[in-house]
């Protein structure tokens, strides 16, 4: 019973499976929300600090676990073994293993403090200001200097520092785009800030990280970093008035239906409706996704979403709409035309 060899086979077995797991994570694959694939100054700084601390942690782990394994392997009871010496302690050892971790912590604490102040959320002069407002369960973005309001997909120019100022319209949310920035909470009545700059254009994924009610899991977002010229074209389009449908087109029918439906009670389309409960739809047709970056912006998703949003996104505040057949087709066509 005392020397059953199975114990000493199971330990390496478990270790090997863990290492295999680690390798799966690091080797290849596409991880759109991975903190290991940092693409901005903020996230890179956090990644570097994490790697530093992780290295210390691995060192401590190996030493201490090895000591533990050596102790239990070497000092197994043997029949007729001598009575152990009743050692009660050892002052020098106690001092040593108090000081050793303290010293390691200094090497962790100093860069930690430096990074805390580096990443306190204040962007340099000339940064683009963006206000992020959390809603159950979508993101509102305002660009106060550009006079733009949009939702869920945040467009930013690559190479320019971004000053994000965030608050919430209801409960606490947390704005997190792992490849660009560490998360920060959105709290009603407060303004929190982060600042970051990415030099790589591309699409970055994120989602709400603070539990915020029924559809917390469905509160996703995209950040689209664009070169200056592309970003400028996007800005121009957002600042332009929404598209006016051609006379007699199906889009125009859609606009009329929109105008007399419940839609205008919650949404804004500049010149058509001006309510602030749901996302601004003035340029919704130009977005890649709908419903908190949950579904691709296709005819089919729009149909399903307008017909019964709460069935796709539990708790969603938009009630099922009674639009059907040609009416629904027309509204969808109208929304898609709002590039």
């Amino acid at each position: 019973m005392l020397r059953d060899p199975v114990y000493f086979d199971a330990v390496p077995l478990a270790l090997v499976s863990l290492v295999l797991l680690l390798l799966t994570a690091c080797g290849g694959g596409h991880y759109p929300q991975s903190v290991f694939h940092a693409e901005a100054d903020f996230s890179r700084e956090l990644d570097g600090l994490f790697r530093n601390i992780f290295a210390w942690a691995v060192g401590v782990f190996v030493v201490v676990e090895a000591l533990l394994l050596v102790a239990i392997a070497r000092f197994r009871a043997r029949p007729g073994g001598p009575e152990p010496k009743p050692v009660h302690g050892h002052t020098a050892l106690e001092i040593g293993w108090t000081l050793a971790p303290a010293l390691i912590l200094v090497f962790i604490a100093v860069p930690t403090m430096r990074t805390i102040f580096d990443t306190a959320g204040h962007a340099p002069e000339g940064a683009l200001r963006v206000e992020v407002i959390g809603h159950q369960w979508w993101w509102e973005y305002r660009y106060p200097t550009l006079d733009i309001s949009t939702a869920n997909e945040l467009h930013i120019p690559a190479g320019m520092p971004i000053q994000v100022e965030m608050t919430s319209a209801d409960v606490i949310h947390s704005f997190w785009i792992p490849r660009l920035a560490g998360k920060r909470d959105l709290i009603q009545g407060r303004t929190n800030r982060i600042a970051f700059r990415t030099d790589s254009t591309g699409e970055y994924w994120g989602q709400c990280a603070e539990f915020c009610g029924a559809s917390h899991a469905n509160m996703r977002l995209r950040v689209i970093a664009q070169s200056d010229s592309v970003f400028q074209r996007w800005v121009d389009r957002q600042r332009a008035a929404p598209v006016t449908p051609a006379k007699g087109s199906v889009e125009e029918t859609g606009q009329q239906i929109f105008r007399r439906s419940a839609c205008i009670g919650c949404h804004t389309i500049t010149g058509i409706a001006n309510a602030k409960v749901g996302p601004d739809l003035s340029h919704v047709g130009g977005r890649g996704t709908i419903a908190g970056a949950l579904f691709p912006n296709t005819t089919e998703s729009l149909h399903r979403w307008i017909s019964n949003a709460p069935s796709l996104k539990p708790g969603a505040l938009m009630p099922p709409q009674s639009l059907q057949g040609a009416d629904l087709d027309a509204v969808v066509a109208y929304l898609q035309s709002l590039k």
Partner: protein
Amino acid sequence: MKSWLTTTDHKRIGLLYFWTAFAFFLIGGLEALIIRAQLVRPEGIGVSAETFNQLFTMHGTTMVFLALMPLSAAFFNFIIPLQIGARDVAFPRLNAFSYWVFLLGGLFLNASFVAGPLFGAGQLSVAPDAGWFGYANLTSRQFSPGPNVDFWLLGLQILGIASLAAGFNFVVTILNMRAPGMRMLRLPPFTWMTLITQFLVITAFPVITVALVLLMFDRFFGTHFFLPSGGGDPILWQHLFWMFGHPEVYILILPAMGIVSEVLPTFSRKPLFGYTVVVYSGVVIAFLGWSVWAHHMFASGLGPIADSVFAGTTMLIAIPTGVKIFNWIGTLWGGQIRFTTALLFAVGFIAMFIIGGLSGVTHASAPTDLQQTDTYYVVAHIHYVLFGGTILGLFAGMYYWWPKMTGRLLSERLGKVHFWLTLIGMNLAFFPMHLSGLLGMPRRIYTYSPDLGVAGFNLVSTIGAFLVGIATLVFFWNLLRTRWQPVNAPANPWNGATLEWAIPSPPPVYNFTVIPTVANRLPLWQTERHGPMAPLPERPPAPIHVPGGSWWPMITAVGLPIMAVGALSHFLPVVLAGAVVAIVGIYGWAFEPFEM
């Protein structure tokens, strides 16, 4: 039956605590398995968002308040009076009261799973659904209109009363009921860690009680303590909750550290290495535990100064914790280690707690925590600490003390199956969570996109969780089968050194035939300085008066959930009726003749 309902015997109350807490542990585990089943693949297997949110809220609440704390309490009750050479706790009826309040509070919370129809909710379950730390302002009437959060805040207030009563009881017991010669620095380490834990309980629980009362006022009486719309502040809730919540972590882990500090010396046949250092580092952990709460709030925007201070204090805690680990290894070093199941669990505790501690250091660094908090990485961390730490420690205690508590030995063969399945299962379940978290999976999501690339890790986690489930059933079977065994445990089956091993298993109702006089830290052992203490007489030389039972603790306890039901239904007469029951109970209790 009546004798169990009215019992004031700390040993019987300990067993009641054990079985009740174990039942809640199984319920909390079942909730975990449904959560893991839903997450086995992207977009789930059909558990609704609402149900999922209830499940993770109740899993956390149940494990913290209804399983781990009361499982520790089972050992406090059964073992502490024996370790200090006492006949019972200082206030036996208060002890019974604590148990009944705990049981009723737990039933009240879990009743929410079937109480929906009473509230016209349109579904069976109205269980709490705002997370186990119930962040404001999601918990406000506006955003949580149903009775769900009411169940939570009323249930936790009831449970807080049980914890506070027990906390005062054990502080007084340990300080005042020690046998002659049992000086403070002769207390067994488990008793020491219990004492520290109870000081944390009586200082931390008032804080959450205040927070819950404020929340109750917000929800029931229209105040705005946590509501920005009326000038309140949701961050105040976070400060109050974590000011309780972080000491709570040490309330959960210190008893397990105490158990490990008993099990390692016994099975290495060596005294605890650095006894005084282990004791004092426990005290230091408890003090530091009060100065770190805001490390749960690094993402809430406290500002760089506060973040630096709390990062620093949090890192400091690693030092006394590391010291304990080195002393445990020092205890094993040079010993003659017997690989009983209890020892395996104690070593498993050390090995797993190291991982939880090291991931804790990565959380302590505020900037790196901005990528980790509220993801599966922190879920991995909490489970390495509370499962790898607390639960493995508690299992070590169960194998170690079960013969003392019941007079029956657990099967070592089944115990080893239980240990290895648990160890492998928990690592499969929790280790991949580090990676799914760092790859961008937030916690508390009932569904995730297949495009995140975390499906494989979640599959492994689910397999591991079900292995732990199987392991727990093996353990349950191991416990059950002892019921049909004859009493077969000797007084001191493991050659332990402390006083509980000086009396028969299970102990007679009066515990000690004569109260022993203690001359050293290891009374039953032969060391270089002293021999074992003389055996106690087999029969009491003089009659021992043992107090009879009392109905009043239970009657008083029954008043509390009645009051809570009244509050839930917004019906004042029921609240008053509950208050009358409690007051009558206290009155009867106060005037009941009851002798020690």
